[in-house]
């Protein structure tokens, strides 16, 4: 049985610290989500556990963390549904050569550089229980992800959402996220299949069948839901409950198929009808609880697993610096070069590279999975969390430096509904 007093106390403290830190970060023109991610680190062994170990042990006794984790994972399941809802496959179909090239390069460049870095890090930060291939592929996936919500937030704040740069960046981030999650799903399947009784081909076949069922079966049902919304202007509680059941059922199916809960909820969001009013209506019913209550719990739980003090000695900090350098070179450098080769001026291409370099919350979600399946060690997890924080934090100041005129030049226009909500998350 959970100690209810302790759980409620934990939630209260986490929400208070996240709100305060988020507000402080807004004052320095950083997205709120960066402050909340930082709050998680403050509450963990890196600061609170180090400065006041007794308070930390009282607030977060190890026996209580299972309940906090369960709540935070429910939040991430819903968040991934919202991220999927914000991605409109139709918008991606009509992208220019520039978007296609930049999105693909912004995946392959960090992926290849990460795998080269893995050659150096594998003997130093991994162990013989993890294969090099899995280690390198995971490093690649974690470094090639882009934080779609944070990106949308930055673009809106600078009135760049409908500028050429903004449109290309959003399209590339969406492609990156979908590709990154597919690669991660493949890695998780490989790893879990190694220990499962079922053949990997049966698992892959099951996943394919499930995806087809969702795209051609469940999506048809969802169109009916959309039609009902247009007819009555609302969706009854029963139908809303049915929608939640579908999202949770999809998450359970992907978990059972050997990938992860999050892939199912993301897929469910991605196949939802994208008519703006319908999307807005659905989002309004999910976002407050998810954004203000459940996601901060995820940040706190991630922070509790991040121990910057475990990076002892100059060698560990050297590895950490190398990871940040390679992550930035692959994503920022790769996207900038691709943007330039697609015909963008250098300044605009560098702005695009800077935007693509934000990893934010999506990076943390992937790292959390990596630590859970033990593909990365606790020290490497801490380094990668630092990398995700640093690359996200550097986006706004770098953009100020590279594209100071961009905010004045772009016409203020409204973002699409899915993006608008993701901005609120950020």
């Amino acid at each position, binding site marked *: 049985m959970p100690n209810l007093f302790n759980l409620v106390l934990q939630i209260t403290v986490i929400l208070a610290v996240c709100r305060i830190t988020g507000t402080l970060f807004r004052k320095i023109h950083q997205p709120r989500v960066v402050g909340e991610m930082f709050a998680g680190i403050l509450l963990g062994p890196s600061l609170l556990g180090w400065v006041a170990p007794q308070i930390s042990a009282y607030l977060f*006794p*190890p*026996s209580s963390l299972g309940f906090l984790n369960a709540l935070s994972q429910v939040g991430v399941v819903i968040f991934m549904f919202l991220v999927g809802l914000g991605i409109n496959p139709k918008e991606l179909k009509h992208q220019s*050569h520039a978007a*296609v*090239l930049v999105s*693909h*390069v912004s995946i*392959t*460049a960090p*992926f*290849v550089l990460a*795998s*080269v870095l*893995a*050659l150096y890090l*594998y*003997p*130093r*930060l*991994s*162990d*013989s*229980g*993890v*294969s*090099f*291939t*899995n*280690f*390198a*592929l*995971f490093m*690649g996936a974690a470094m090639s992800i882009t934080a779609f919500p944070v990106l949308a937030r930055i673009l809106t704040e600078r009135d760049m959402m409908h500028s050429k740069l903004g449109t290309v960046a959003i399209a590339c981030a969406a492609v990156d996220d979908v590709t990154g999650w597919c690669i991660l799903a493949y890695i998780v399947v490989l*790893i*879990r299949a*190694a*220990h*499962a009784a079922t053949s990997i081909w049966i698992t892959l076949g099951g996943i394919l069948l499930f995806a087809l069922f969702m795209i051609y079966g469940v999506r048809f049902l969802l169109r009916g839901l959309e039609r009902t919304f247009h007819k009555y202007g609302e969706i009854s509680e029963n139908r809303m409950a049915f929608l939640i059941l579908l999202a949770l059922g999809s998450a359970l199916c992907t978990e059972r198929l050997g990938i992860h809960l999050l892939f199912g909820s993301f897929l469910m969001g991605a196949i939802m009808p994208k008519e703006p009013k319908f999307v807005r209506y659905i989002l309004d019913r999910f976002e407050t609880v998810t954004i203000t209550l459940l996601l901060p719990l995820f940040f706190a739980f991630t922070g509790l697993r991040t121990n910057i003090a*475990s990076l*002892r000695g100059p060698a560990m900090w050297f590895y950490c610096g190398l990871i940040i350098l390679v992550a930035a070179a692959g994503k920022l450098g*790769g996207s900038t*070069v*691709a943007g330039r*080769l*697609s015909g963008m001026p250098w300044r605009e291409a560098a702005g695009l590279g800077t935007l693509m370099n934000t990893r934010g919350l999506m990076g943390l979600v992937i790292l959390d999975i990596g630590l*859970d*399946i*033990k*593909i990365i*060690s*606790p*020290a*490497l997890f801490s380094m990668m969390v630092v990398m995700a924080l640093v690359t996200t934090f550097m986006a706004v100041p770098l953009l100020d430096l590279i594209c100071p005129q961009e905010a004045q030049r772009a016409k203020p226009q409204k973002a699409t509904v899915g993006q608008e909500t993701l901005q609120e998350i950020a």
Partner: protein
Amino acid sequence: MSGGNRNFVFAYAFLVVLPLLGLAGVLKMGRHLAAPTSIDGVWNLQVDAAQMTSLPCAQAISAFSDQAFSISQSGPDFVINSLAGSQTIGSGSLEGNHLSATLNSVPVPSQNSCGTNSNFTLLAAVEGPADSKILTGKLVAGACASCAPIPFRAERRPAAPSKAGH
């Protein structure tokens, strides 16, 4: 093919296809790399309880006398935690199949022959296949002249099904 399309194809081949071929090469090269022996996980401890309690210093490493402990490994470095409460018991490093760790000792009364500032070292060797690893070694009390080294044996519990194996 127009000039724009041709440039796109060249850029795509140079920036996407070529790196992917490089990735395949890196993955192939990495297969020959060896990482430190895996000792991460939960270990069941077998130690002579009578010998342990007869030690003047037994009180100083009471956390280690639990029936099990866990090791959290990052490359050759590792941290030993108690299972109950996840309290850190000690930390150390691995060289080949041999590990050495310093255990955190709690202060004991000064009248005890253990000494107030005794340090404990765990020296052990890892043996066995990946799914049934065994640690055999001894616990040595550095500053305690009257403490004989205590031999111990620990067996790793089977890994959780999600471990990122080969």
